[in-house]
């Protein structure tokens, strides 16, 4: 059934209601699905962190039993990493990347839907563990042999493995989509050297995922086989080695942190130029330093293992690699500061969050360098010093950048601006709360407090700082409430945004807010890095270009209707089949055949469906 939108007729099998959302293959819809789901997981992960802080707020506390505490902190880490930051970045990427490169959609719309549904079902599968015998309780990096059936007798770790594998399918498939989309669907004239930096970082991130995730997949499969089929990979008394887990895991785990931060770098690299009203300083350096970080990230994994008894020479090698990787990161920071310098700053919420990001990431980066110093690492690893470091880069870094991205692109996605004053309010409460929560953790680590302890005695002098941190955590919670309030009221009554509320530089701001289903009536041609800016302000253009920076043919020049892929049930069916198979693998292996059959049926349907 064709519908007319503006001048362009389109086909759309389902347009409204649940059916639309279950079958959508449109990148903008899927982006929204990702963002909303990820934030729901964020709230759950946040509640988990509040429980942790309540338990640790005073010494010898009995609010949470050790068993429950261990499940909560395991799920907190797993949720924030796999079910919040990664999907949020996928959500932004999905919504924004095609717009930024002048494409109509991602290269493989149904694959895109599949990546979302497998993420969602993977997350739900993981959380169902609370109701089915207990959540995983061995920490988010699940060191063997604590994860064996002897020491983790509930199904919790099986849920962890299968949840990770399932969300891993989603990430892999999503990354394949990004790679092909970014490499192949750029608008005419948009060479790689003209691509927005957000797209660069998303591309590198996608490659990292594709090359790092398989190591986790292997580790997780081996763990599942050990737990359920007696395969002694990590069991020392049968010749296995717990360190095999650590190497396989961290070979993924270190690139994983770059997966979590590079898209954030990308967001900052878009927000700063827009709100400083000038180009990014050192585009090439920012782009290539991202690539360098992508490569180098694979060479440093054992810096998570300095205390396991490796040869000191090996320690030294990983140490120097870890220092080397600090160089491209510092370059970016200086480039960002230089982008601000000389700008005519539009001091809106996205900019404020971006500045907060840089300020916090500097701290996280410095504590990271200190962790790379092996003798220091011997003292601070596995203490609250590491917890401080990781939260400065993941929260102070990624999460602040995520909020910058939300305030920045919310108007594009919804057509309405978020309230800027509430945004500033959220920022300051969050900034104070964040530093109050996590800065003292550096000190606690230096004062000897190990991580992952459910309680502590009052004779160590850790009481006051822990209490302050708990207060800080609830302060952050208040900031998040301000955020939620802002979102809800802005959706209803926010100021209309128009196409280009920030006087932007890149292609997404040329479309309406929200963009039409087909994004661009006709695919634009670009000749500079800031095609929209250069079109608006040719006198301020920095790149020499004889041809106009941006050419957007009129809609009447379109050759007939724009074909948009119709919705499809097969992605969600396949994801469901996978979930059935995985549940069966935990509880009754033969039934997994049913899941396999469903997946197979889904694939057949998919293949036979007209594109």
């Amino acid at each position, binding site marked *: 059934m064709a519908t007319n939108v503006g001048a362009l007729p389109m086909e759309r099998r389902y347009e409204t209601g649940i059916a639309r959302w279950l079958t959508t293959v449109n990148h903008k819809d899927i982006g929204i699905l990702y963002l909303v789901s990820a934030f729901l997981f964020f709230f759950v992960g946040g509640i988990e962190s509040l429980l942790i802080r309540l338990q640790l707020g005073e010494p010898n506390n009995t609010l949470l039993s050790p068993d429950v505490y261990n499940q909560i902190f395991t799920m907190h880490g797993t949720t924030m990493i796999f079910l919040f930051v990664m999907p949020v970045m996928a959500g932004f990427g999905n919504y924004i990347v095609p717009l930024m490169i002048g494409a109509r959609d991602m*290269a*493989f719309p149904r694959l895109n839907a599949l990546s979302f549904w497998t993420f969602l079902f993977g997350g739900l599968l993981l959380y169902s563990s609370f109701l089915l015998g207990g959540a995983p309780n061995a920490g988010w990096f699940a060191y063997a042999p604590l994860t064996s059936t002897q020491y983790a007798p509930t199904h919790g770790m099986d849920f962890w493995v299968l949840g990770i594998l399932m969300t891993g399918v989603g990430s*892999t498939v999503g990354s*394949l*989509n990004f*790679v*092909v989309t970014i*490499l*192949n*669907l*750029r608008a005419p004239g*948009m060479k790689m050297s003209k691509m927005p930096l957000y797209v660069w970082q998303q591309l590198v991130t996608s490659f990292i995922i*594709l*090359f*790092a*995730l*398989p*190591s986790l*997949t*292997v*580790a997780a*499969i*081996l763990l599942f*086989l*050990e737990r359920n*089929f*007696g*395969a*002694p*990979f990590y069991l020392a*008394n*049968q*010749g*296995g*080695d717990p360190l*095999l887990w650590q190497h*396989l895991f961290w*070979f993924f785990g270190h690139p994983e942190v770059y997966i979590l931060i590079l898209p954030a770098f990308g967001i900052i690299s878009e927000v700063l130029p827009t709100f400083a009203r000038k180009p990014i300083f050192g585009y090439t350096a920012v782009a290539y330093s991202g690539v360098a970080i992508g490569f180098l990230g694979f060479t440093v994994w054992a810096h998570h293992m300095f205390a396991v008894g490796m040869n000191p020479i090996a320690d030294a090698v990983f140490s120097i690699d870890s220092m080397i990787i600090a160089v491209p990161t510092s370059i970016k920071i200086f480039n960002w500061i230089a982008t601000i310098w000389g700008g005519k700053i539009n001091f809106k919420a996205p900019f404020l969050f971006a500045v907060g990001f840089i300020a916090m990431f500097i701290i996280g980066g410095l504590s990271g360098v200190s962790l790379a110093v092996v003798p220091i690492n011997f003292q601070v690893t596995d203490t609250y010093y590491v917890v401080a470091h990781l939260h400065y880069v993941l929260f102070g870094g990624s999460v602040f950048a995520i909020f910058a991205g939300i305030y920045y692109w919310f108007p594009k996605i919804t057509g309405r601006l978020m309230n800027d004053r509430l945004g500033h309010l959220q920022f300051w409460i969050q900034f104070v709360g964040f530093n109050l929560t996590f800065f003292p953790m550096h000190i606690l680590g230096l004062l000897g407090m190990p991580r992952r302890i459910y309680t502590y005695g009052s004779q160590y002098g850790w009481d006051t700082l822990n209490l302050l941190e708990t207060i800080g955590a609830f302060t952050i919670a208040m900031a998040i409430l301000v955020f939620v309030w802002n979102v809800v009221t802005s959706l209803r009554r926010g100021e209309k945004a128009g196409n280009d509320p920030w006087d932007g530089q890149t292609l997404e701001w040329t479309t309406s807010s929200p963009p039409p289903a087909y994004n661009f009536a006709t695919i634009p041609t670009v000749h500079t890095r800031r095609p929209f800016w250069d079109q608006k302000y040719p006198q301020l253009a920095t790149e020499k270009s004889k041809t106009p920076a941006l050419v957007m043919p009129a809609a009447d020049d379109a050759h007939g209707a724009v*074909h948009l892929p119709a919705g499809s049930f097969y992605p969600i069916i396949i994801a469901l089949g996978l979930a059935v198979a995985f549940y069966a693998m935990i509880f009754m292996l033969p039934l997994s055949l049913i899941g396999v059959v469903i997946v197979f049926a889904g694939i057949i349907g998919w*293949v*036979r*469906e*007209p*594109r």
Partner: protein
Amino acid sequence: MSDIAAEHPIEPTSLGIDNRKLVVWTFIASEVMFFTGLIVTYIVMRGRSTTGPYPEEALSVPLVAINTFILLSSSFTMVTALSAIQRGDARGLRRWLIATAVLGLLFLSGQAVEFTTLFNDGASLSSNLFGATFFTLTGFHGMHVFVGVIWIAFVLARAFRGGVTKDNHLAVELVGLYWHFVDIVWIIIFTVVYLLRM
């Protein structure tokens, strides 16, 4: 992938490679990392079994060498199938695709025999570290071969419906890429596990 009939003109791509070809190459690159993890695990765990059966006794090269030859031949038939359709020989395509699938199934049968022999020697996922690493590595490889055979079946089905032509045979190229990858992985596994006894 549905009928790649010319319903909608395929837009030119920035790199000049078809999207689907790019995605298969990229996917294969990721799978390389997956098998690297399994192979490395096999190698570093070699010699650490605390109990038998040990690979020195349990593994026999002759049967598996034949099996390797079969899989290698299937790559040859796959190439032949592709070159057939490149010449427009639809019948040749179908014939050589069937041959490839049959050889693939033969390989899998050979693996089944090898696995059964090993089971009878007491090797299994839980018997010892050798059993665990061996069956995981070769098992996942076998699964990949099986998926390949199914993929060939899909392409064959389309070929029988007349949907694969001289101008439109990307599907054959893609399944061929995947098939050769699976073959190369096997060559490495065969070398590491059976020949070099690493």
